[in-house]
């Protein structure tokens, strides 16, 4: 086990810089998820930590050692790939024991380590099969087994669940989390699925265009996103955004259609802003400060109702914890809780404390 420290990390491919000076640190034994849209550089970071790509500038520490110029095999890491990367001509046991064989461990030792790992993952009876005789979930387990057997300081996961179907993904998510609890090995997990990141990680690193947008605990990102991008990326269904304006001294945020949201702290603000509304912070209601919105779509899941509505000429999502049957095109009144509303600078996108 070890800490991982990433310091001013830059990476260029043919003069195009894809990572622009990334820094963050991972405490010993933590489960960190790197999350962001595709092309944000999250997989590149993983590959740099693994040593599969060369660092352009900056440093990566595992424990107290700089590993920039150390060969992948000497970094004491294990990586699980999206397509599993199992050796097709080797059995499950041979796949799992591959690295130990290269370390010239004795047959008995390899067998014991493979058996142990297989037991943890519940694949004991598959040891003599070839990868092509396994299902997707089983292959995924073997890939993890191959990583566990090495007892590495750091686990690296590159979108390991993307090739599985939705149900299996939820199950493997729980298994992975349990595995981490049991082994307590420092883990870096790359995913484009923010739900995976939110549910599994101790720390989430949100990335965009080769920059780190925010590092924090999952709920911290949800409640206090640093900017509009993080606010929109974290949370499902996603936050809705409405442009609004206010003047110094006025408590009112005025939307483009003239509807007004008021809160005393708005008095210090002046100019154009973006109001962020979480779907669950909007309620049905007639009296009080209510907003009119036109229903454009409605999805009933039984326990909840998800509405897509047009408010102040913007599409927002509303999540009701109740059944609500409405024809498309109807106008309804909703109540917005002003204390839960987030305000972003319309130019920089940064969230303002209000």
């Amino acid at each position, binding site marked *: 086990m070890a800490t991982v420290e990433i310091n001013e990390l830059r990476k260029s491919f043919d003069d195009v810089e894809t990572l622009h000076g990334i820094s963050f640190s991972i405490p010993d034994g933590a489960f960190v998820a790197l999350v962001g849209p595709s092309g944000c550089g999250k997989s590149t970071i993983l590959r740099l930590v*693994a*040593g*599969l790509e060369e660092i352009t500038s900056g440093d990566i520490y595992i424990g107290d050692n700089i590993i920039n110029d150390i060969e*992948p*095999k000497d970094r004491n*890491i*294990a*990586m699980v*790939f*999206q*397509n599993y*990367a199992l*050796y*097709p*001509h080797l059995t499950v046991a041979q796949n799992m024991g*591959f*690295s130990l064989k*290269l*370390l010239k461990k004795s047959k008995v030792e390899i067998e014991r380590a493979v058996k142990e790992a297989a037991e943890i993952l519940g694949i004991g009876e598959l040891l003599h099969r070839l990868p092509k005789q396994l299902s997707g979930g089983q292959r995924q387990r073997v890939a993890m087994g*191959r990583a566990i057997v*090495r007892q590495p300081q750091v686990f690296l996961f590159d979108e390991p669940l993307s090739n599985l179907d939705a149900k299996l993904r939820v199950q493997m998510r729980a298994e992975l989390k349990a595995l981490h609890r049991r082994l307590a090995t420092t883990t870096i997990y790359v995913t484009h699925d923010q739900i995976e990141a939110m549910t599994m990680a101790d720390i989430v690193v949100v990335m965009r265009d080769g920059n780190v947008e925010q590092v924090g605990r999952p709920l911290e990102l949800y409640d206090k996103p640093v900017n509009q991008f993080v606010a929109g990326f974290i949370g499902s269904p996603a936050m809705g955004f409405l442009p609004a304006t206010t003047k110094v001294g006025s408590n009112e945020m005025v939307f483009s259609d003239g509807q007004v949201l008021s809160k005393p702290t708005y008095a210090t603000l002046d100019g154009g802003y973006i109001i962020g509304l979480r779907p669950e912070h909007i309620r049905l209601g007639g009296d009080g400060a209510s907003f009119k919105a036109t229903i454009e779509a409605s999805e009933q899941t039984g326990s909840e109702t998800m509405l897509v509505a047009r408010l102040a000429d913007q599409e927002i999502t509303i999540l009701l914890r109740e059944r609500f049957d409405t024809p498309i095109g109807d106008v309804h009144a909703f109540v917005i809780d002003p204390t839960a509303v987030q305000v972003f600078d319309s130019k920089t996108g940064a969230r303002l404390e209000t």
Partner: protein
Amino acid sequence: MSARARVRRTNFMLDILLFVICILLLTPLILLIANGFKTPQEMLVWPPTLFPKDPTLQNFHKVFTETPLLQWMFNSFAFAILSTIAIVSTSALAGYIIGKFPFRSINIIFVLFLATAIIPFEVYMIPLYFQVKALGLLNSIGGLLVGYLVMSFGIFLIRQNVIASIPDELLEAARIDGAGELWIFCYVVLPLLRGPLAALAVLAFFQAWTAFAWPIIVTTRKASFTIEVGLANFQSAYTIDLSLLSAASAAVMVPSVLAFVLLRRNFVEGIAASGMKD
């Protein structure tokens, strides 16, 4: 007529057609083998008999005792085996490198490899002959091998297979697992290329086994002839003894037919797999 009956009838017609084609293809072969067992008199009978009336082993006996047929077969065999080993190993290495380590200069080299395929061997046969002569390799297996060590199609075939069937992640996983590049090549890449390499081996073997133009100019002494050159020699040195030539040809066919039958599956699979994803 019901649809099923129609399908059955079509299948039956197809079977007949294929059977006829099969007979047409096999008849010369059967005739050749049969001729080996005929007396010189029966050879000249018209219409030719498909099965000899009075089979004799005389021709085979004569061929094996009066000509160095076994020596020629050995020469051909050694030449073909060595050429196969060389072509398979150069193609595997070059195809893997070109397929998995792409940088600009290697692509130029690859295009040059491919370009050699459009230059007919006859164009550089004579200059090559002078080189072999200067090296003192005339009348030797070494001399035969020059020009049969690398096959551009082989490099292409392996490159296609490497790109289609060996994912980068597999090599990366092996690197993280602690394998060196040579180790990866031998224990990860080669086992996965078994099919195409076997197909290439068959191709390479027959290319050398059936080579004629190059062996006939590189070998001048009877003892160093390959089988192809030796057979051609029957027609001049032993004039028109067709039964002898047939017996020799029939004897020569045995190893090559045997090899093809044994490797048939690999051969078809390997060729079919090239350029196709698993």
